[in-house]
């Protein structure tokens, strides 16, 4: 009996590091980042992260945490072990969302107040390019082949397709009101763009040469919820490209879209004003930030059910999970 217990404990001890990942959540009003453990789902740390931290991402090696401190007009870089602020990157004014090249550099940043996308080299800390885009640039996406960076402009209502070769806009696609977020499927053939006020997700087909064509728009509807509350924001797509999860803001739900059929198959009730989301690396869990209830909800991806909510800081906005 004694021996058996030891063995189990040993296995558990060995197994834990492979499954536990740090989950980083920006708290927009609290000016902090909360750190959770994806095994215990407990908050293990909360640290200061500048003024109005919103966009958040992590370097491919998991060592550097990038946080858009919107009211500080910079991207702050933290050590993911010590939570120390290492340095900041020039970002242009009011950075909100950004996307990191999978090689670790550059960082493509939307500057909401100045109608610009700023491209910043994360090694040299230099601004490589500033690209004029539509009014109130917001969502940022990078195609899997890294040839295209897509920015959505909230008042212009377009997805701008910027070539990463010469940083010039090559295509513009009009979508519904207030496009908030963009996300490619893993195979790069589809781009989802959420329109918060339009209440739709525009599905844009991407041709071999990168030419975008609007395929369809997906709407939402749920008994007992006013249509006005169904405001899509963040999107995540499973790497097998089967399921897309769409955060519906003040509807307090995450919609599940069957990517093949492009139909909504389920709504998952989460916390209030659900905003952004991130998968754990094994895609077992999806974590949602809920701005008004100051918590995050953990969704079991296979079951498509919410399993747990955890209190974090004030007005959680963005979330990123450390790689294995």
């Amino acid at each position, binding site marked *: 009996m004694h021996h058996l217990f030891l063995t189990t404990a040993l296995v558990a001890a060995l197994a834990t590091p492979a499954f536990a990942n740090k989950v980083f959540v920006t708290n927009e009003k609290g000016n902090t980042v909360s750190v959770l453990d994806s095994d215990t789902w407990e908050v293990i740390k909360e640290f200061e992260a500048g003024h109005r931290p919103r966009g958040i991402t992590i370097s491919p090696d998991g060592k550097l945490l990038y946080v858009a401190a919107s009211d500080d007009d910079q991207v702050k870089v933290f050590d993911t072990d010590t939570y120390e602020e290492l340095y900041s990157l020039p970002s242009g004014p*009011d950075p909100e969302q950004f996307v990191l090249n999978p090689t670790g550099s550059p960082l493509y940043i939307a500057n*909401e*107040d100045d*109608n610009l996308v700023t491209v910043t080299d994360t090694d040299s800390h230099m601004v490589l390019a500033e690209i*004029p885009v*539509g*009014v*109130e640039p917001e969502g940022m996406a990078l195609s899997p082949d890294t040839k295209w960076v897509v920015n959505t*402009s*909230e*008042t*212009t*209502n*377009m997805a*701008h397709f910027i070539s990463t070769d010469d940083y010039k*806009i*090559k*295509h*513009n696609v*009009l979508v*519904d*009101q*207030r496009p908030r977020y963009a996300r490619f499927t893993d195979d790069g053939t589809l781009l989802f763009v959420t329109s*918060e*006020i*339009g209440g739709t997700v525009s599905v844009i087909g991407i041709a071999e040469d990168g030419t975008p064509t609007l395929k369809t728009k997906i709407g939402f509807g749920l008994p007992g919820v*006013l249509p*006005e509350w169904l405001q899509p924001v963040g999107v995540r797509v499973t790497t097998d490209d089967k399921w897309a999860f769409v955060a519906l803001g003040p509807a307090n739900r995450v919609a599940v879209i069957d990517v093949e059929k492009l139909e909504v198959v389920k709504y998952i009730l989460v916390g209030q004003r659900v905003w952004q989301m991130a998968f754990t690396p094994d895609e077992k869990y999806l974590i949602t930030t809920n701005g008004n209830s100051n918590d995050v909800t953990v969704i079991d991806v296979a079951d498509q059910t919410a399993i747990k909510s955890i209190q974090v800081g004030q007005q959680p906005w963005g979330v990123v999970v450390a790689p294995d």
Partner: protein
Amino acid sequence: MKFLRIMLIFGVSFLVAGQALAVDVRAVVFRIDYPTLAPISRFDLLPEDVGFAGAQLAQEDNMTTGQFLGHSYTLKTVGVAPQEADAAFDALLAEGETLIIVMANAPDLLRLSDRAGNGVLLLNATARDTTLRDDQCRANTLHVAPSRAMLTDAVAQFAMWKRWPRWFMIHGSNPADQLLAASYRTSASKFGAKIVEEREFADTGGSRRTDTGHVLVQKQIPVFAQDAKDHDIVIAADESDVFAPYLPFHLWTPRPTMGSAGLRPVSFHPAHEAWGATQFQRRFEALTGRYLREEDYQVWLSLRVIGEAVTRTGSNDVATLRGYILSDAFELAAFKGVAVTFRNWNGQMRQPILLYDGRITVSVSPQDGYLHQRSPLDTLGLDDPESACTAFD
């Protein structure tokens, strides 16, 4: 003819391969500058660029969007004295202007609408008179400014949500105050409130801001308000800005004030932050160096309506734009949480109304629970069966 200010901004358009043909869109903001008395609060002093500043921001927004589509925008702003209005307006028509945002009172707006005829589209940015959306509607005139009916309904819904149905209404003596008071009576009966007592505060033309004004106010207002029947709130109907700001702390019975003071219904205010409004406020402030006013928002919104219709139709033809704006396909984000659209029975823009205490957004109407078969926004103002407007049939 004296033009206070004429501003021309020309758009540079460059085409993105494979996209629409070049379209140039010309719009005018036509403002009649009425003589006004000094406001009770110097926070309400009218800036010289009122409305025009909102136009300038909208022009930048439309140009930025237009550059990706080959659309360029030209904006002209014209400010005139009332006696010069007709001649200045005729000159614009002679120049071929067809898209005109008007900042004028109701009688002037009606006269201009009738002068303009059918080939011109007017957008009413400031006149609140409900009658313009009712028997006095015009087919060539859309209303971006909320009507008095929408504003008083917004207050009524909030008061009823609070379960404060007994109202003591104090209204002014000028025509605009009387119209506002009538609108509160209608809203009260629409939503089940009861006006238990009404009193008129006569505008005797006294000095508004004197060194000893507050002493008199402190003595006179409580006496004026005493012995009213039991009430939950005081409704102030004072469009003339004669007395309402004095009410909140000087009443005989301690009750909240709503309407022209206390909790005020507004289309927008400079502290509003929800629904992405912060970035809109910042852009406005960076451009103009001052806080935004309702007039600026309503003019900005009027020009954005035109911009959005041009973006979606690729046309600058008045009939095409008007048809699209009034269609179900039209929707526009306006930093108020839901898309704004137009009522196709009277040309009024549907929009939420913010309830503002001078510092924050206290609430937003329509209130929870006020449902409508079409949109909750249609619980504010004249619904289809209530409007006598036939010009849009």
